[in-house]
């Protein structure tokens, strides 16, 4: 399958290893991964902060770069960006866009997937040949869970990883408190939520907390690092891309 990879602005700039892992994983599974170089950002931060005029060009750019019919599916290692594309781009296009933009958004959002959705629903694979001999706990991110409804797809993938010691996270479905600019505007409340999440994670004794969103992992990882917990965060894609011959370099600092 010819798959368009959307790196997301956060992934491209700050957490490239998760995007690299996505590209390598899909290529290893025999797919043709393309990276339209004109891509930038989906505009989620703008929309969620209350700005819908400003991201119109971003929504248009996304539809233009990935609208090409030769791209059969668009994937991104982020539940919240996929949620924005599928649920919010239409709102922006309806309000401030033209007919062409509305049509473009319809086309591209219908073929947009978060990584675990693409693997399980579209490519029909749960065994991806990964090897990751570590104790891992999984945090389902809010937008992947309640906007995209990925359900247990990430867990189906993780259960097939060879050598993994997968432990359940208590209160897993509670928000970590990130919420984009929420973490800045309501830093106190966000921190209270974060502390409860990091307490749950450290109680599992896991070496690694994984999730499908680098943004939530940036938040959780920032909290775990501050309390010197010894537990680190790693994007789901990196676990799935790790093999016996090419293990993930866990010593790296980035998520």
């Amino acid at each position, binding site marked *: 399958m010819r798959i368009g990879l959307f790196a997301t602005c956060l992934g491209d*700039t700050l957490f*490239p290893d998760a995007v690299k892992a996505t590209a390598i994983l899909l290529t290893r599974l025999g797919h043709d991964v393309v990276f339209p170089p*004109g891509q930038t950002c989906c505009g989620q931060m703008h929309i969620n*902060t209350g700005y819908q005029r400003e991201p119109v*060009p971003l929504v248009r750019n996304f539809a233009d770069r990935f609208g090409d019919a030769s791209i059969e599916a668009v994937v991104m290692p982020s539940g919240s960006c996929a949620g924005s594309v599928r649920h919010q781009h239409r709102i922006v296009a309806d309000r401030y866009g033209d007919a062409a933009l509305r049509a473009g958004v319809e086309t591209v959002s219908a073929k947009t997937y978060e990584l675990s959705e693409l693997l399980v629903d579209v490519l029909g694979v749960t065994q991806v040949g990964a090897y990751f001999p570590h104790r891992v706990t999984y945090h389902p991110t809010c937008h992947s869970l309640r906007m995209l409804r990925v359900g247990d797809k990430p867990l189906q993938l993780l259960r097939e990883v060879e050598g993994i010691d997968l432990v359940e996270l208590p209160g897993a479905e509670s928000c970590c408190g990130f919420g984009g600019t929420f973490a800045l505007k309501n830093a106190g*409340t966000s921190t*209270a*939520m974060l502390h409860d999440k990091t307490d749950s994670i450290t109680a599992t004794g896991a070496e690694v907390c994984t999730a499908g969103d680098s943004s939530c992992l940036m938040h959780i990882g920032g909290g775990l690092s501050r309390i010197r917990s010894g537990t680190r965060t790693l994007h789901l894609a990196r676990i799935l891309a790790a093999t016996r011959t090419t293990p993930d370099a866990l010593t790296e*600092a980035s998520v």
Partner: protein
Amino acid sequence: MSTFLGMPAPPPRPPPGTGNLRGDQAFPRAAHDELGNDQLRRNLGRATSTIRAKRLHVTGELPDWEALRDAGSAIKTDTMNRLPELLEQLERKVTERGGTVHWARDAAEANEIVARLVKATGSDEVVKVKSMATQEIGLNEHLESVGITPYETDLAELIVQLAHDKPSHILVPAIHRNRDEIRQIFLDRIPGVDPELDNVPAHLAAAARGYLREKFLTAKVAVSGANFGIAETGTLAVVESEGNGRMCLTLPDTLITVMGIEKVLPRYQDLEVFLQLLPRSSTGERMNPYTSLWTGVTPGDGPRDFHLVLLDNGRTAALADTIGRAALNCIRCSACLNVCPVYERTGGHAYGSTYPGPIGAVLTPQLAGMHAAKDDPNSSLPYASSLCGACFDACPVKIDIPSLLVELRHQHTEQTGVTTEKLAMKAAAAVMRRPGLYTTAQKASGLGRVVAGRDGTISRLPPPFSGWSDSRDTAAPPRETFRSWFASDEGRAALRAAATEANSARAEENSDHDEKDAT
């Protein structure tokens, strides 16, 4: 020749609601004080997690729960779409059955109507059934100001009233109080209470019951809210747990019911849906202990005089917002409060309104507006959410609260002039719409490596990011962006190696097939 008919003018915007719908400080500031209250955090954490589990149990056991939610949502949406005709029908039916209907534009008008009706009976006290509408309009304070004493008869409302406190939860108004605090409130405020009163819940309830029993038997006037008002029959409904409502609705001579206009339902049969949705969502019970239904007055049975005060107080203004009006579908079950990670930590007072939690964060600005003055505290409410979506999943009438919050945030930024944030957002969008400029900006972000410590993390950031760095480390930006890696020799080699693995795996699979074919 044409006749000039004048410029079409937009209809006058309905007035916003008044009363207890605006705090005196913005949410983050108010939340800061509440977050420091460990007792409150413990009370709330325990109470909300218990009720969450109960709700999940009783909603999960119904095979048609999702269909019920759809039905509830559809009935409410239909109601809002033809609210004027339904309200007139309700008025007609209530009048036919011997009741009197009053229309109140806002809190002040509703308060005046109720006070006038009470005075006309010659009584100087009323017993009250727990009601959000009368909390919203500040009826108790108004009645006291004109020499009428209101007695709250719901246990939790009584606790709040005796302590001169404010409710912090729609269903459990004293959720922020524990039994020791309640014992002290009763000892201080209930006349003639046993000084040996301990903190056993049954004993506390008995103390309240002893105090209230006399009021039930002597009060001539009761004031209630309504959970539902049926347009088809003129029937009003109150659902409750303690039986105090039943006594208020049946014992006094005069009953005055204050009902928000959005509480109307078209048909009697619609109760079938809502009497399943409401108790399961609010208290986590299959059925609430007391459901009282009454239609006008019945000679020889119950109050001889019945008044229905239909309260607008900003609801027409909310109805004018085609997206935001969905907030009016709320049936005040409080399920969204109990699942909200923000409410669980801050409690209800931080919202500054009678309506706290996720629904309060959309309903309060809808009813009372959020641009009454510069830095209106209500404009901070739509941001009091991480948009986690738990509220939407819990809502029995499927109000998409996260989308409404995002919509209200948009309305807010459209209303405010130029702000630093808006300039930053415009600048970010201007960069991100131009891939070349974006790539340059990405390279500049690499400068963050300079401020990182030796362990590769940044532990302090300047405002507005200092709230972030107070409790979180930030990893230094990487040496290389994804796009530069993808275009690099290293990236190309890594992907070539992965493709080779795919090819050899495929070849192996094919040879397996061939072998099988051969055998």
